[in-house]
């Protein structure tokens, strides 16, 4: 029997290795798997490359990884979120390298990895600092920049509901990067609020089919957005 459910974040993260590349979903706090990332701090892996829209704010999640100096490189579009002091300190100390990627290029490079493409010509960033040194090409009268896929060893994402095959539902704008990161990582680990029985999720409404998800773990968010709704 296929059963992708794990009993604890600790179990779900046990093979994360030093030097691993890790995608982390979320935009603001929505869809951010803070509890799973906090468990990664406890797990101890270091020298990580983090691919996420932000570089952590406050004291939990990615910020806690930064504080513990586990991150060698961040690939993100917007490192400046609220209270970015842990990232800023590491960045200014030279402990962490920053690859700044326009958000749409970040999304499409993650999608390219998930879909098995070799590279894509994207319109974003042409003629800017963020395309310096990159190959460009005029296609049909418009200029494009050649960008390569971003894949990862692990994706840590937050969803609302999972079944034992790994099918996922999300909640509102918490969906954001989850579905595309799930497709681009070797091992996708989803933190969810609920487990559903197999067949309980309407096949028409599945957002991430289980083929893209290797492990699911039920974790109670410290602050549950749903409870405020």
């Amino acid at each position: 029997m296929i059963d992708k459910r794990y009993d604890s974040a600790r179990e779900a993260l046990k093979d994360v290795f030093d030097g691993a590349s890790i995608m982390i979903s979320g935009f603001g706090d929505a869809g951010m798997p803070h509890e799973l990332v906090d468990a990664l701090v406890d797990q101890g892996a270091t020298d990580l490359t983090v691919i996420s829209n932000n570089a952590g704010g406050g004291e939990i999640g990615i910020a806690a990884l930064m504080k513990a100096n586990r991150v060698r490189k961040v690939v993100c579009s917007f490192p400046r979120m609220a209270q970015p002091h842990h990232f800023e300190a590491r960045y200014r100390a030279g402990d962490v390298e920053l690859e700044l990627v326009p958000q749409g290029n970040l999304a499409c490079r993650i999608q390219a990895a998930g879909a098995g493409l070799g590279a894509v010509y994207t319109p974003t960033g042409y003629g800017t600092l963020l395309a310096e040194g990159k190959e460009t090409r005029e296609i049909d009268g418009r200029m494009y920049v050649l960008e390569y896929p971003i894949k990862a060893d692990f994706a840590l994402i937050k969803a609302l509901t999972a079944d034992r095959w790994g099918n996922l539902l999300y909640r509102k704008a918490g969906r954001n990067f989850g579905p595309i990161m799930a497709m681009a990582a070797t091992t996708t680990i989803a933190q969810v609020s609920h487990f559903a029985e197999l067949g309980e999720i309407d096949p028409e409404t599945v957002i991430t089919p289980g083929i893209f998800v290797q492990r699911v773990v039920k974790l109670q968010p410290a602050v549950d957005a749903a409870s405020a709704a």
Partner: protein
Amino acid sequence: MQRMTREQMAARVAQDIPEGAYVNLGIGVPTLVANFLPKDREIILQSENGILGMGPAPAEADVDWDLINAGKQPVTLLAGGAFFHHGDSFAMMRGSHIDICVLGAFQVSVAGDLANWHTGAPDAIPAVGGAMDLAVGAKQVFVMMDLLTKGGESKLVAKCSYPLTGIACVTRLYTDVAVFELGPDGAEVVEMHGGMTLGELEQMAGVPLRAKASA
């Protein structure tokens, strides 16, 4: 001279958004435009974090941190709205499905080049978000900004000195003193506020300006 407030500028931008338009409002001042959209027009707001049909801020009791805009402020969803992932969201922007985006700027050139993501200060930690995607992707890019910096320098320039966000992408510029159309032939003045002459405006802007021929 009377200058427009941010609210007046937002109201002016809102006038130019037609019924049925799909619109993305950038972080900061452009967000104000939502408050001035004509009540008799259905206009659909997109947020880069996966929302179409964004509604106004909720009452405090209804705040849901899974329902926020690109500026991470709580919003609501209108009937007919939809959620989607970041791939689809940026396909909307980059694939020219968004009719209008409204952005702030540090500088805009008369040809429509946009600089709004980076001051170029060597010690700044840069952040770009979705600005470059909106700049290249939306069918029309509107910029809202004061014409002058606090130091009195014009932000409408012959050539941007700040790092660029996008090239030749801004179509309309809404400032506190005038509205401009930008393009390969330079800046045309669509309207002036506060009774200025074209010569006075040109002197203030420090770039050559033409009056737009009336339609």
